[in-house]
């Protein structure tokens, strides 16, 4: 079981760039060890200069966005490498939800499998939210309600977002996907047995005892 996610309330940081890739989200140097500081590694090349000092202009180095729980992103967020550390780095930093007009396929899968909401929003509505947050950073608190499918900022801004029903429910229940799949273990075994009967060659070809390697 994972912690269920029904609501995200917190500061929303604007990063309205298109095609933000997973190398930018977490550079490969942070993939060298299981004990890497992924929170530090998040957007490392944009957040820190060559000496390791913060770049004050980068959004996540500016108050109140330093404690962002929501990232308002651009199209095709998370493209490139399949590295799941991109999601882990966002989470270690404190991000629980990314809102974007579209996501790259593998990042999108990885997000939900870690209990992170990847919310797809209308481009124009999201642009309005980003403009509002940029104009009044002191008022960057945003509330995202999974049940109602609503993103709300103060009294002035309400917008919807899309998330497939099964993903929303899995997030809200905190499903362990492997446990869910293992409930179909009989179907898997039946498929495997039927396939083995139909395509025996496929299994004999890789059987340890079958061939000299």
């Amino acid at each position, binding site marked *: 079981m994972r912690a269920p996610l029904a609501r995200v309330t917190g500061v929303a940081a604007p990063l309205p760039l*298109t095609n933000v890739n997973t190398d930018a989200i977490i550079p490969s140097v942070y*993939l060298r*060890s299981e004990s890497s500081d992924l929170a530090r590694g998040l957007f490392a090349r944009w957040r820190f200069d*060559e000496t390791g000092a913060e770049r004050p202009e980068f959004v996540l180095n500016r108050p109140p966005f330093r404690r962002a729980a929501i990232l308002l992103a651009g199209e095709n967020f998370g493209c490139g490498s399949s590295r799941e550390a991109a*999601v882990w780095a966002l989470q270690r930093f404190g991000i629980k939800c990314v809102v974007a007009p579209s996501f790259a396929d*593998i990042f999108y899968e990885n997000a939900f499998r870690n209990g992170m909401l990847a919310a797809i929003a209308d481009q124009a509505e999201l642009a309005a939210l980003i403009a509002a947050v940029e104009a009044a950073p002191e008022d960057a608190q945003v509330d995202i309600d999974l049940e109602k499918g609503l993103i709300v900022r103060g009294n002035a801004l309400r917008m919807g977002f899309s998330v497939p029903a099964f993903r929303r429910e899995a997030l809200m229940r905190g499903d362990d996907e492997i446990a869910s799949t293992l409930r179909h273990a009989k179907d*898997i075994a039946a*498929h*495997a047995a039927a*396939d083995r009967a139909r395509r025996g060659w496929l299994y004999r070809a890789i059987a340890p005892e079958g061939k000299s390697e």
Partner: protein
Amino acid sequence: MTRGSTLFEKVWNAHVVKRFDGDRDLIFVDRHILQETTCAPAFAGLERAGRPVAHPELTLATQDHIVSTEPDRTEASNPEGLELMRLMRANAQAHGIRHYGIEDTRQGIVHVIGPELGAALPGTVLACGDSHTSTVGGLGALGIGVGTSEVEHVLATQTLLLQRPKTMRIRFEGGKAPGVSAKDLILAAIGRFGIAAGRSHAIEYAGPAIRALGIEERLTVCNMSIELGARLGLIAPDDTTLAYLAGRPFAPSGADWELAAAEWRALASAADAVFERDLAIDCAPIAPQVTWGTTQEDVIGVDQRIPDPATLADPERRRRSAAALRYMGLAPGDAIEGLRVDVVFVGSCTNGRLSDLEAAAAIARGRKVKADVRAVVVPGSASVKRAAEAKGLDRVFREAGFEWRSPGCSMCVSINQDVVPPGARCLATTNRNFEGRQGPGSRTHLASPAMAAAAAVNGAIVDVRKLAS
């Protein structure tokens, strides 16, 4: 009357264990390949839950991402990578999974060894924790690149729960011109259709120019499906495919070969099959391609000039283009040909196979790498390295001044020690030209192996067709 099925639909449907709402299918995985940098947490997760590996006999593990590529390497050659290398070895051993470490004759980049071992076969589903798994689509296999949670899911269940992708076909019409490679075809397609064109789709590459390609070239085309935004890319198997697979260690043999071959011949998309998106590109006018920016769609022919962001109507595209030019240290209107390079890298799952090294060696032969250029060749696998050495390619490269290294991902992902220095310009045969991809501040231009060798001996980007004759 119902329409015939596409290649993708035939393979996918044969693997559906169970359908779920939301267009999701539970898909059986025939082969699972592991690499050391994306699976340690998956094994830890299995251990926490007390779950066994469902089918270790259908699983292979190797080490490629973090390994040193020093000529006489040991695991200790990259001390920073020891933790992940040892975890991979220990996890494979604990679960009875075949493991090809750096001492093994079968070690290499996951997407290079899958085909060369015959672990990837037409009509099969192959999963791997790496986004370039679609490479094996060149054999008509469905290669699915997954994250670490999905690696754990495959280990525990031998299945993947996936959103059924939409179908898409890209027809490569006409024939490619002399001096133009498979890499140029796929880069040109990415330039034409964009890096998000294939999102949520499985792409079938078809048309006369694809049919004319050898298997290694088809692997190059399918490799860059993720650079079109697609998780899946494949090419129908044919006689070329069967000839490539015959006799491979994990390919069926004897009577089994005949059974398999009959199935493989029936996989091609039906003539009346319909694709949800059908695109075409004319190959005849495609010149050798070079990327100028920081995404793969920022690509032009070597004879072209760098586009001016001011001509773009969309403000976000204008901003992005200008930022890419700033990062790359280039100006609009500059010719890409003549641009000086500091590093040349030949290798990777895109272009690290024998035919790639042959293409580079054909240019390097009898020439010298320009002073001040570091030129590096990293074979995609131990087997590629042996085959290249048997043909004397290592000598050709060494005599020309290239480094001849040991197999691994190396400067494509730069998780090991192989990095491009800050500000340095690298012509690479790899697949990603993102900011900092080859090291902080590195500037990457993607191109073919022949173009890479040409840049190394010329000291600057040059149209390889001027050297080939």
